[in-house]
């Protein structure tokens, strides 16, 4: 499965952000809590030291009761030997106002008032710390979320803008067809890699176009140049057959050469036609009634079909109007006719059908389905018909492609069927 470039990048960003959030939140929580507790303990020590330094020297035993009354978080209790010096421990104490157990840290230290040992118990409420930690955590999460969302959006926007030339280049290459006369135009990019990519592709396309062009010209020139020698051969043949003392054998040979020359001539003309279609020499478009075009040539091909005792049946269920080049459309129809007659057995049947947006040429056959892979390739001959030059169908295909129509071949009930789908 392929993913979009941006999608893939962002996905990784998101996964990373999520992991960071998950891991950092508890760490942050515990760290904050630890810091706070340390802070609280320090406060306890500070208050103890304060008491020892400032309050204790001025105190007498009588003051203890008063002090215990005033002081909220401190108590002075009589000394017992079981207590451990400077020990901080955790305890909960029921609070009547909030009606719940509240957490406390308690510090017990040994003091001397008027030379009698006492124990100073100082405690600190931790309830505020929980609220604080929670608030900090929420704030932290919120900040992180905003940060990540922002990063995601910015990356996305930036990436789209950054990759724009790349996507443009991609689109141009996708739409590029070597036989169409439209060179791709790449958006100039300030990013070096894209610039290099565009340069490389432009160079590649230019080279290919040059090769394509010279190949096309070669075919056209070759076909063109062959016409004159062909004309000379033809005219000598026409003169040769006028010789009065030709033997039957000689006449047979000449007759065969004549056939080959006319085949050669047709092949040459088809090659010329192909290269002309490729170089867009048929650009004039006009509305064409396909029904009329078929009727125009029906007589000619009916006569050709009669030689093999083939019958042609024309069913018009629709008046098919297309906008195309007349000459090319005529060539498609003629080649379909010719193809059908060529591949129909004696006493066979050809059916031409015009449906909505579709034209069907069906011909009965004793063969099997044709090999569809190379059917429309140049010079792909079917082995059972050595007469064809293998250009008819490729010419049809080329014209169909030019017009953005579609051609399909299938084999059904011993009928070869060629179906043309005109524009929808």
């Amino acid at each position, binding site marked *: 499965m392929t993913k979009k470039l941006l999608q893939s990048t962002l996905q990784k960003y998101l996964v990373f952000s999520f992991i960071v959030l998950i891991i950092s939140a508890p760490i942050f929580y515990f760290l904050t809590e630890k810091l706070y507790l340390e802070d609280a303990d320090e406060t306890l020590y500070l208050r103890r030291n304060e008491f020892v330094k400032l309050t204790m020297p001025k105190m007498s035993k009588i003051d203890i009761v008063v002090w215990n009354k005033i002081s909220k978080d401190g108590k002075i209790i009589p000394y017992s030997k079981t207590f451990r010096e400077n020990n901080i421990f955790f305890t909960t104490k029921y609070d009547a106002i909030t009606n719940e157990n509240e957490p406390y840290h308690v510090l017990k230290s040994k003091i001397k008032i008027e030379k009698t040992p006492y124990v100073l118990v100082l405690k600190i409420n931790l309830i505020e710390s929980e609220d604080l930690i929670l608030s900090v955590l929420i704030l932290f999460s919120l900040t992180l979320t905003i940060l990540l969302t922002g990063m995601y959006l910015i990356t996305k926007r930036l990436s789209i803008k950054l990759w724009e030339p790349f996507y443009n280049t991609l689109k141009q290459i996708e739409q590029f067809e070597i036989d169409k006369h439209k060179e791709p135009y790449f958006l100039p990019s300030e990013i070096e890699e894209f610039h290099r990519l565009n340069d490389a592709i432009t160079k590649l396309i230019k080279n290919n176009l040059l090769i394509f062009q010279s190949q096309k010209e070669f075919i056209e020139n070759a076909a063109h140049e062959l016409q004159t020698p062909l004309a000379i051969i033809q005219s000598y043949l026409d*003169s040769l057959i006028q010789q009065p003392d030709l033997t039957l054998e000689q006449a047979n040979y000449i007759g065969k050469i004549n056939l080959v020359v006319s085949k050669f001539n047709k092949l040459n003309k088809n090659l010329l036609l192909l290269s002309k279609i490729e170089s867009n020499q048929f650009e004039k478009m006009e509305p064409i009634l396909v029904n009329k075009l078929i009727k125009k040539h029906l007589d000619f091909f009916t006569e050709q079909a009669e030689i093999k005792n083939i019958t042609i049946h024309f069913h018009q269920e629709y008046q098919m109007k297309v906008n195309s080049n007349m000459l090319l459309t005529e060539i498609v129809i003629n080649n379909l006719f010719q193809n059908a007659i060529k591949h129909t057995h004696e006493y066979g049947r050809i059916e031409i059908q015009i449906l909505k947006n579709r034209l069907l040429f069906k011909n009965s056959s004793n063969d099997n389905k044709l090999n569809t892979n190379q059917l429309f390739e140049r010079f792909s001959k079917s082995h059972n018909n050595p007469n064809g030059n293998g250009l008819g169908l490729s010419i049809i295909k080329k014209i169909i492609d030019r017009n953005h129509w579609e051609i399909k071949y299938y084999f059904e009930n011993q009928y070869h069927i060629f179906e043309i789908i005109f524009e929808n």
Partner: protein
Amino acid sequence: MKILIIEDEVELAKSIASYLSSNDFICEIANDYKSGIEKVSFYNYDCVLLDLNLPDGDGIEILNHLKQIHKTDGIIIISAKETLENRIECFQKGADDYLTKPFHLSELFVRIQALIRRKNFKGSNIIQFNEISIDLLAKSIFVHTIEIDLTKKEFELLLFLIGNNNKVLSKSAIAEHLSGDMADMLDNHDFIYAHIKNLKKKLNESHCTDYIKTVYGLGYKWQND
């Protein structure tokens, strides 16, 4: 009848000349643009066969030149260029007909005849061949003054045969002539057999001499013994 062949392929020009010469045509050959211009300037021809691709100039210029000096020689273009634009340009500049290479000499021959007939048209357009007379305008045929009914194809076939009197016509030449623009769509030339048979039958029925001879392996011939 005087014909000028302006064609740089010497071999082609020669074979055209030899085919035409045996039919009481006098042929001259110009192998390049310069001699072509000279010849059309100094002499009059019934028909000029003009190749467009000449080594030292464009055949179209010869068309322009003829127009400038107000000559009305019939002109048939023989060219390897076969685009519609080319044809239209030539016709606009005064050409009378256009044949794409390669062509059959028999085809060229009937085109020349038709062109000369059109040029010399004096009210009626009738071809007389022994007992046969053909009215080209009415498209009707009389044998011994009795009209016979021919199909369009048979009519054209008869004209083609008579035009190439005493010449052997290959099947492909006949087939291509009868098919006109559709000649390239022919897969074989067997269909002419039926037309020849029917034409022969119709001519025989009206007691016409049997001029149409089959030349084995090659084609047919209108033979006037």
